[in-house]
């Protein structure tokens, strides 16, 4: 078989194989449906509860994207700031590392205290959990400018702003777009965690209610919906990355 075709088909084949294995395992081991429902039962639940799943998926997606957009804006700005000045870097870095070490689940109750349950804590959690990798990547791109190149430009009388504009920012773009893939995935984690703890909407809340009513196939249908959204958004970020920074991906290594 043609190599590129086999690579193209591989994700589908592996996914289907996993589903078949799952179905067979449940059937052969006689696993009860309320413990681990087979894919067919999950599909049936998806079909049956489609309006609710659809509505809540969109809600979760919107929440996530708002948090993510905030993270992109804030992360980019903070990354540029941290990359701009060694003093700001030295001052902020330990704070950011400490902040990043806090499990964001622990922040949700505080956000609820401030904003009430629902949409606001969810997108804020998505934001808080996803801006860090963006900051780190943008700052890394700026910090790794070749010193020789900096010398060449300084020797021409370039200001710091010139160097930032001509070299720093274009150079950190691949790092930035690379970090979006990580950030979007984290943003989903943030919004769903918050929805599960403190919301009346979204897939997180849907799953919590399904669990309370012991509708195990619906819980799994919610999981699958999240996975699909995650894959689509990750893929969109990967396409964006390739579009924007083709020059940085010339090596055959990453493409092979």
């Amino acid at each position: 078989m043609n190599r590129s075709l086999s690579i193209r088909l591989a994700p589908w084949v592996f996914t289907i194989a996993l589903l078949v294995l799952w179905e067979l395992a449940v059937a052969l081991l006689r696993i009860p449906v309320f413990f681990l429902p087979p894919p067919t039962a999950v599909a049936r639940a998806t079909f049956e509860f489609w309006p609710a799943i659809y509505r809540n998926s969109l809600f979760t997606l919107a929440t996530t994207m708002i948090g993510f957009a905030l993270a992109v804006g804030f992360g980019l700005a903070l990354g540029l700031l941290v990359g701009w000045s060694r003093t700001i870097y030295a001052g902020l870095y330990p704070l950011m590392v400490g902040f990043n070490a806090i499990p964001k689940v622990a922040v949700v109750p505080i956000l609820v205290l401030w904003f009430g349950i629902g949409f606001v804590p969810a997108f804020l959690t998505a934001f808080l959990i996803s801006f860090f990798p963006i900051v780190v990547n943008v700052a890394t791109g700026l910090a790794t400018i070749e010193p020789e190149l900096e010398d060449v430009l300084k020797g021409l009388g370039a200001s710091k702003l010139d160097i930032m504009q001509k070299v720093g920012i274009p150079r950190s773009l691949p790092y930035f777009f690379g970090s979006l893939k990580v950030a979007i995935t984290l943003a989903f984690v943030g919004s769903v965690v918050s929805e599960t703890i403190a919301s009346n909407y979204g897939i997180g809340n849907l799953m919590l209610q399904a669990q309370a009513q012991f509708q195990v196939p619906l819980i799994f249908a919610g999981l699958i919906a999240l996975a699909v959204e995650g894959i689509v958004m990750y893929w969109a970020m990967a396409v964006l990355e390739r579009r924007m920074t083709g020059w940085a991906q010339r090596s055959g290594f990453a493409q092979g």
Partner: protein
Amino acid sequence: MSAFVALEGVSHVYGGAGGTLAVEGLSLSVERGEFAAVVGPSGCGKSTLMKLATGLQFPFKGTIRIAGEAVTKPVKIAGMAFQAPTLLPWRTTLENLLLPLEIVQPHRSQLSRKKGEYVARAEKLLASVGLGGVSAKYPWELSGGMQMRASLCRALIHEPDLLMLDEPFAALDAFTREELWGVIRDLHAARRITVVLVTHDLREAVFLADRVFVMSARPGRILLERRVHFERPRDLEITYTPEFQAVAHELREHIHKARQ
């Protein structure tokens, strides 16, 4: 007339008091239009010398003058090239060449108005180093030698009076390196530009330079200054003559001693 590049009793420490003493009591002068080469053991302060002369670092002792003026900020009449070509991968070769013009005055404010003129200048410069027709290519589409040529062009595009080269050919294979010696020799001859070349290749130094400076091990200072009288234009063939070999050999002895 005072020298074009003049360093007198220059000492430089990295990392504040108690840091690494990179050069100490370094004095050297290069005439306008001269081709000077600096050789010395690795880590002796050759790159430091370049940075001091171009105002990227400042000494704690001694004076540095370029074209008669004390160096107190980065020198704008110098073009620089290093071992790594440091071309920007997101710009084409032509756009890379135009980069200095986007920074240096008066070109900076004229660039959009005189774009066509500057592009023509860049194309001509590229052609003069044997890079005609690659201006639309990205750096990663060029071989190492071609990238180095483009990097030299970038150093020259704003028509500096002084060209500072820090081991520019060290990463190239022997054949490419010798080709580029020819390129640099011709650029120097055509533009009457002052060149300071740092190298650890003695053949390179003797072939290209009017004067070779030998530096001591760190902290670096000038141990020896040797004029090279071979007539210009020089052909690569002269590197195989006994006279040439004698000069190279003599310098080699001194460097050998400097390493101890």
